[in-house]
């Protein structure tokens, strides 16, 4: 009677076995006397049939449940099990999904608890980040081996032409090595520690030679090897240096240009005196003419020298990209509220300006409106028109009389000691200000101040359709990667990766198809570094077929001004460095890159990992391995699909989840992951053969 209390799964299993046994018994009884061989065949077919039923109803659903449970337990508690059709697992899949829900709830609770603890840490981190962001100089923090541990936004802007910039990369790949090494040696702790300076200054070029930076370097004095290293501030002196050289040259030329007329003047004066004494009327007239001529030359030379002298003062001002709205917000917050009018500001535009002096000018003008015209409220706006941004102050009342405005502009700025007038600041920005009635509203007046605009700060990413999947296993065999060395046994989570994707003119590089775009992002210590992306369009030197454009959306027009493919590949090579390269169906992208190696004089011998192959390896219960389905399975949002950078970012998020799952398959190190991947390649090859 115990059998009647069996769970449904076991009951069905035993029923199937019982049915099989009964069929086989009947077959044997009926067929053995007639034909023993037929009886045996019937028995075998019966067993096979039962096996198929058991596999379909139990085996396959069980495998899908096991894989799904793995995903739920490790990466995506909300994952829905991919159990298809009827099965005999009863409520097992639902129970596993309920467990997933419970795990998700527990995880949320844990996260909430952790969040409370991390809030304080985050607050400190935010404070540090704010400080770093607000520091006008670039800041870089490096470990003792020169690996970059931290950098701020200004550093990223200053080093924007250096593709190697990134966390975990060596500073020597970003800055000219010699001067920095020399300076660090000066700062090395020695026995006569009293003579070791706390910091030192150097001027060095960036690795690409694009900029000249003044750096101040200080060693981080700590006993903890994890926090040892050095910190450096960076300041761009390229412009100042070029400007200083130009100024020096101009000044020298201006001074030298005075020497000849002065000499001529002296000599002609002396000659005139002698000619007058000798009563040589003709020579007197000749030398008088010369004196007039040389006096004129001297005057012109003096004017040139005077202009150069003026530029010595103003060339030291540094124009930056400034958000006008933020600048006005700063005035509202820090300005003297008793002297300023109520300000309503709509100025979401960028200008190229010396931020401090411009804010002083705006503040001074606002204060004058209050003090001299009794204006109580000003609507301040910024409007782009061509290369200029018009800053407009609008108020209810009369325009400022020209003479009065002249007086305002000729006044000194108090906060800079009154040595610089508003007009000088405006002249430095190649502009002036004027007042006029607001023609659109009676009774209102404007003060208009055109400023040089700054380039657009935000770029939108186009969304284009998908590229077809492409498999190619031959390339990996033909191109050996470099020996792995120490990284072979490093845990996957500790390695640096560069996840990349290429958009191309077609699928056959050997037949002339070319790269039109490369996008990439770094993964450092398991974190996708959204601030360290690489994205460049490349000019393939051939028309982009309309079919390719329909896939990735990049047209001939888009790449007309882009650098050639070779330049983009070289820059990507510098960006990638020694990192492990990761892609989704990476063989496709590697094939394009490797065909360019010789012409670009670079070598892509980095180890590679393929998110597609790893997904197939981990989730063999399903045949769904498109980027969208893998992302969906792992709980990854898909953004910017069909662009090189968008696909790279999605692949990066997928990859970070895959490496969390790999230990479940006893894959912990890079060498193990590569070996498993190679097994998958072999498996796919055999699949293809059939």
């Amino acid at each position, binding site marked *: 009677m115990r059998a009647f209390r069996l769970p449904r799964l076991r009951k069905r299993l035993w029923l199937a076995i019982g049915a099989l046994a009964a069929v086989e018994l009947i077959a044997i009884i009926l067929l053995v006397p007639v034909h023993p061989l037929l009886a045996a065949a019937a028995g075998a077919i019966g067993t096979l049939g039962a096996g198929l039923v058991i596999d379909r109803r139990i085996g396959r659903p069980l495998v899908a449940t096991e894989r799904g449970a793995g995903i739920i337990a490790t990466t995506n508690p909300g994952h829905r099990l991919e159990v298809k059709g009827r099965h005999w697992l009863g409520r097992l899949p639902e129970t596993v999904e309920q467990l997933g829900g419970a795990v998700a709830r527990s995880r949320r609770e844990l996260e909430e608890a952790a969040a409370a603890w991390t809030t304080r840490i985050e607050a400190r981190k935010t404070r540090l980040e704010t400080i770093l962001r607000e520091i006008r100089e670039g800041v870089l923090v490096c470990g003792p081996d020169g690996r970059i541990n931290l950098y701020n936004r200004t550093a990223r802007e200053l080093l924007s032409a250096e593709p190697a910039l990134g966390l975990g990369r060596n500073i020597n790949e970003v800055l000219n090595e010699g001067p920095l090494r020399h300076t660090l040696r000066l700062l090395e702790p020695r026995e006569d520690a009293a003579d070791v300076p706390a910091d030192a200054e150097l001027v060095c070029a960036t690795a690409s030679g694009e900029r000249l930076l003044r750096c101040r370097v200080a060693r981080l004095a700590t006993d903890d090897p994890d926090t040892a290293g050095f910190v450096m501030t960076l300041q761009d002196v390229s412009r100042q240096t070029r400007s200083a050289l130009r100024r020096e040259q101009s000044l020298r030329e201006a001074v*030298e*240009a005075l*020497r*000849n007329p*002065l*000499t*001529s*003047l*002296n*000599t*002609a004066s*002396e*000659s005139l005196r*002698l*000619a007058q004494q*000798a009563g040589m009327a003709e*020579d007197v007239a*000749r*030398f008088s003419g*010369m004196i007039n*001529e*040389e006096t004129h030359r001297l005057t012109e030379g003096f004017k040139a020298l005077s202009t150069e002298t003026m530029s010595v003062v103003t060339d030291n001002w540094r124009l930056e990209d400034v958000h006008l709205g933020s600048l006005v917000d700063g005035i509202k917050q820090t300005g003297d509220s008793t002297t300023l009018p109520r300000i309503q500001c709509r100025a979401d535009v960028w200008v190229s300006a010396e931020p401090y002096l411009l804010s002083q000018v705006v503040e001074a003008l606002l204060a004058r409106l209050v003090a001299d015209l009794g204006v109580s409220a000003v609507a301040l706006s910024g409007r782009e028109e061509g290369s200029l941004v018009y800053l407009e102050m609008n108020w209810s009342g009369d325009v400022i009389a020209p003479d009065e405005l002249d007086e305002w502009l000729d006044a000194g700025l108090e906060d800079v000691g009154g040595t610089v007038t508003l007009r000088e600041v405006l002249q430095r920005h190649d502009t002036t200000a004027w007042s006029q009635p607001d023609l659109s509203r009676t009774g209102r007046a404007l003060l208009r101040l055109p400023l040089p605009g700054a380039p657009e700060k935000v770029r939108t990413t186009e969304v284009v359709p998908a590229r077809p999947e492409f498999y190619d296993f031959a390339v990996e065999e033909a191109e050996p990667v470099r020996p792995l060395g120490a990284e072979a046994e490093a845990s996957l989570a500790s390695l640096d990766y560069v996840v990349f994707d290429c958009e191309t003119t077609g699928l056959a590089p050997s037949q002339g198809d070319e790269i039109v775009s490369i996008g990439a992002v770094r993964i450092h210590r398991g974190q996708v570094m959204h601030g360290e992306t690489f994205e460049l369009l490349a000019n393939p030197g051939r028309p982009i077929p309309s079919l390719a454009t329909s896939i990735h959306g990049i047209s001939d027009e888009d790449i007309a001004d882009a650098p050639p493919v070779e330049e983009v590949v070289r820059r990507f090579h510098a960006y990638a460095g020694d990192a492990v390269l990761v892609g989704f169906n990476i063989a496709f992208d590697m094939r394009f890159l490797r065909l360019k190696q010789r012409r670009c004089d670079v070598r892509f011998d980095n180890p590679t990992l393929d998110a597609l192959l790893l997904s197939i390896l981990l989730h063999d219960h399903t045949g769904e391995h498109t980027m969208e389905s893998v992302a969906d399975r792992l709980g990854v949002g898909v953004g910017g699909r069909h662009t090189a950078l968008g696909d790279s970012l999605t692949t990066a998020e997928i990859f970070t989840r895959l490496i969390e799952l790999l230990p479940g398959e006893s894959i912990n190190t890079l060498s193990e992951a590569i070996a498993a991947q190679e097994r998958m390649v072999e498996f796919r090859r055999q699949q293809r053969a059939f």
Partner: protein
Amino acid sequence: MYKNILLVDHESNLATALQFLLGHAGFNVTLASSYAEAEAAVDGMRPDLALIDASLPDRSGYDLCQALLARPGLQHLPVLMLTTRSLEVEREKALSLGATDFVVKPFDPAAILGRVQELLREAA
């Protein structure tokens, strides 16, 4: 006997006024405004002293200095270089390339006259 002075400078007012002063002091002055003109002038005269501006329009005044000193009979020609560059290295360069002396513009005409007379005395 009049001493011959070769004055090479493309600043025409200066050259004319200086020619007048030197002529008034009893010298026979031949003017040239370029390297080529100076070369041609020396073919028809034998200078006792040369006043050469360092920056000539066609070639450097230092080249002319060396070319004159390389001519037969002119190895000991006193050469007074005139220049608008006040750097100390310019003086070193002038003396190294064979010039006897070096004067930075602007100069006092009387001082130049005195220096010319002095150099001619030394050469004699």
